[in-house]
């Protein structure tokens, strides 16, 4: 009679920063250092789990994922610094920004704990809310309503409007191009041994976000030796040469973050 149910228990994180902090600090007691690669893998695995559990993977999660993957790709690219110094600087800035966001997050968590303590201790002290004695003939307090009919209507409008969370971020989810898709497409575009440049490979793209996805794809393919990328000096075109033929199936799954993308 008793129906056996299996419950998949996974902590639900309120956002990507909370998830990242948890991943990083849960490793703090381990001897081996948490590498960026591990971090990316775990982060992406968690997003995967969230999707399996039908939890919404919001665009914030994906934006951070893309930053992490970029950082990882950059750190693994052979002869780092050869591609583009500007890119390097940009990436360094991205990393510092991410770190400072994590720090700020921890800082405000600490403040929140103090607030919680103070709020709960002052809750034990009750102020009187009854006002003046009824049997006292007081002049009516000089009431300043401060609003007219129009303002009152505006207030009503606001109060009656149900709170809709994450309303204006939805479009980002749909817009974020899939790096996995870009990797597949890039490989298709590299024919034979012909050297070509990145600009040509991405000439058909219209949106900057897509170009970023292709750049990520390029870095990742280079990391796995599926192509070679080089750049003579900052500002010069990035030259791309096909190379090797290792399977990219595993990689693709790691990058396949596109929430609505599967079929």
């Amino acid at each position, binding site marked *: 009679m008793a129906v056996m149910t299996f419950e998949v228990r996974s902590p639900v994180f309120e956002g990507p920063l909370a998830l990242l902090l948890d991943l990083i600090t849960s490793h703090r007691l381990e001897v081996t250092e948490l590498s960026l690669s591990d971090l990316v893998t775990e982060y992406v695995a968690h997003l995967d789990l969230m999707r399996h559990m039908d939890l919404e993977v919001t665009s914030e999660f994906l934006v951070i994922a893309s930053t992490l993957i970029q950082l990882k790709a950059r750190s693994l690219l052979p002869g780092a610094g050869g591609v583009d110094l500007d890119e390097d600087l940009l990436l360094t800035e991205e990393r510092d920004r991410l770190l400072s966001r994590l720090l700020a997050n921890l800082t405000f968590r600490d403040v929140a704990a103090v607030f919680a303590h103070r709020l709960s201790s002052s809750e034990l002290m009750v102020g009187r*809310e009854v006002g003046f*004695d009824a049997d006292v003939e007081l002049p009516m*307090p000089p*009431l300043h309503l401060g609003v007219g009919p*129009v303002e*009152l209507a505006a207030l009503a*409008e606001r*109060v009656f409007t149900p709170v809709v969370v994450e309303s204006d971020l939805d479009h980002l989810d749909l817009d974020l191009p899939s790096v996995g898709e870009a990797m597949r497409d890039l490989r298709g575009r590299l024919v034979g041994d012909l050297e070509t440049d990145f600009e040509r490979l991405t000439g058909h793209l219209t949106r900057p976000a897509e170009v970023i996805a292709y750049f990520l794809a390029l870095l990742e393919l280079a990391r796995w030796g599926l192509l070679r990328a080089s750049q003579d000096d900052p500002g010069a075109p990035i030259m791309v040469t096909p190379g090797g033929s290792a399977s990219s199936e595993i990689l693709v799954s790691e990058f396949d973050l596109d929430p609505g993308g599967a079929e």
Partner: protein
Amino acid sequence: MSAVAALEAILFVAEHPVSEGELSQALDLPPGEVRTALAQLGDALAERGSGLVLREAAGGWRLYTRPDLHPHLERYAASPGTGRLSRAALETLAIVAYKQPVSRGQVSDVRGVDSEQALRTLERHGLIDQVGVSPGSAGAHLYGTTDVFLEKLGLRSLEDLPPLGDHVPGPETVEVLERPFRPEEPSSDSRS
């Protein structure tokens, strides 16, 4: 005595006279000791010349402000800070205005927080009134706006309230809305 202190605290927050039975329960004391504590509290207040007096009324006990101090209270009542409606009160007023007759539970549902206090404030200012009882078994009071409300808003009737729905609050309106909530009163009160 801790019992006297607890007694004072209960009477301080109570809205209505509290019966000896209720006090006995809240203080976990037999009725005889409740009466002793009441007498002690009354004496303590008188002894130190407190601004409060303990009086028996309507089947219970209650703390009151001393009548000879009422001139001070009147002056306090006339100070600008007391006449300012909180945002909670204004929100509640907006809900009552558009949803009347409405129960406290319905108001609280819309606002997402208990709104008893806000309703009481509005009632005290004469802006809303109890206009009936909910037909449901609970028999909750239903609130509606008053003539004072219409007068303060310069409306002839409730039909003059701007319709909802086609009203989008633009930035200017919001700006106006902020005004009553800013400490613009003769300065002194928001500084430490």
